[in-house]
């Protein structure tokens, strides 16, 4: 049986890493949505036959997003080191990890948001147009509220993705649970730390998924999701 001293030590080791991970996921998730959400909305409304059709913009934006999404996170992170240093002053640590996390997550968010908004039936948008709604009113009063539950599920998927990325960021000194797993579990053969890290990651992912699902059901107003 592990004694209480061992447990305390383990707690001291793991809990800061958990908080670092949560901090990274939360901060980069929020920033990625601030950048990615407007892009996703713009991708939808600028598409053919939508409320602000603009094929040129849609195509250009789409291409940029595809290029960013095709770079693997680990490569992007290394490539962005000079940029990260310029923005936050260092390229090591949790805050520094947020820069590449945001840059690789924002295009993902744009696509996820795009997919959700495209689920809003064109008839509903047309009805709003027939009532004299402006494009801005259609975005804020039709597209976003109507796709709320789908947007929430998308946010859960995004957050889970970011959890995975933070673990990778940990591998190159980003802090968090990934860092812990590499330093103790891999470099010092501490299998127990490795197992706990994995278990905590599983729990975090489960929590995000469950919360996302609950909220999505709440905001589905009786529709199937």
């Amino acid at each position, binding site marked *: 049986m592990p004694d209480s001293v061992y447990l305390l030590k383990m707690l001291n080791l793991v809990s800061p890493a958990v908080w670092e991970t949560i901090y990274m996921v939360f901060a980069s998730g929020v920033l990625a949505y601030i950048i990615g959400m407007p892009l996703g909305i713009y991708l939808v409304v600028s598409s053919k036959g939508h409320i602000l059709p603009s094929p040129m913009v849609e195509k250009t934006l789409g291409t940029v997003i595809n290029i960013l999404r095709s770079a693997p996170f680990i490569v992007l992170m290394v490539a962005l080191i000079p940029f990260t240093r310029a923005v936050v002053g260092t390229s090591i640590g949790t805050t520094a990890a947020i820069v590449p996390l945001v840059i690789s997550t924002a295009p993902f968010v744009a696509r996820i948001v795009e997919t959700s908004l495209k689920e809003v039936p064109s008839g*509903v948008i047309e009805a709003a147009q027939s*009532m*004299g709604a402006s494009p801005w009113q259609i975005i804020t009063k039709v597209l976003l509220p*109507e796709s709320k539950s789908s947007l929430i599920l998308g946010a859960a998927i995004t957050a889970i993705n970011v959890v995975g990325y933070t673990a990778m960021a940990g591998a190159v000194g980003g802090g968090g649970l990934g860092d812990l797993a590499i330093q103790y579990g891999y470099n010092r053969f501490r299998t127990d730390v490795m197992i706990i890290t994995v278990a905590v990651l599983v729990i975090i992912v489960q929590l995000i998924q469950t919360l996302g699902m609950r909220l999505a059901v709440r905001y589905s107003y009786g529709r199937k999701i």
Partner: protein
Amino acid sequence: MIEINNLGKVYSGGRSYTRALGGVDLSIPKGSVYGIIGLSGAGKSTLVRCLNLLERPSEGQILINGQDLTVLSGEELRKARRRIGMIFQHFNLLSSRTVAENIAFPLEIDGMKKAEINKIVDELLPLVGLSDKKDSYPSELSGGQKQRVGIARALALKPDVLLCDEATSALDPQTTLSILNLLKDINRELGLTIVIITHEMKVIKEICTHVAVLHDAKCVENATVEEVFTSPKSDIAREFVSSVFPAELPEDLLRELSSHKDSELVRINFLGDTASKPIINGLITECGVQINILYGSVEHLRSSLFGNLILEIRGTDEQRGLAHEYLKSNSLVFSYLNRGGADA
């Protein structure tokens, strides 16, 4: 009050080119219930969507109360659209809003104050018979109830015109009837002009005052419902009329009866007053002919009676001549079925 002048619409994209409307002229009087009927692909939806510029016409003008909509854009167009309500085949309600919130939607769009919105919504709910469903979500409503919400929503801004694109096509016959009755009441009580797109003649028969028949992107016939039902001019209109008033005799029966040399087959349409006159009695007593009733039906057209008779008239040439004069003098709409070209 709605003038459609030389309206044309071409859909062209890539290699495809569809002429959905080719020079349609219509004049829709204020307060009328104007039906537009046609087969699938005739251009009905395109026409009605051009009326509020959901579809931009390729050519022509649309004047509503003298204002040409086709020259408008941006905020001016949005303002004009608020004077035109629209309901849809698939209702198109906002699923994240309750019934009351859906009805409030156009009022919010218009920038109205909350208190005022609530007042209007509370007036509209009983009008469409949904007071008890105020806080339900669309997913909890039946099709008919959803369309009632759609109607209330379309009426919220007190429009001059209500456009209906196949508004009852997704509903069962009984619900269709109740929605049509609601529209009829609204037309009468609010004096609202209603434009109804449909492919079902029974919808036209139920509530329309006027009807236009669209065929292959053209308007082939337009007149009052009475005129079109009693004397349709185009083949397609005749087909539509016979879809609700099937008054065709079987071919072989017609052949057999036609071989009688001293008899004629005549089809008589009655409308309103004439439906209550004792025509057959008059023919027998005043003209001395013998009458054989082959087909008869009395239906209602909107709220007047509409009768359809096919008679065999037997008698001498002279007697049959008298019968012809008799029908004419009673201003009946009639036509001979076996008298090579001769008719009223």
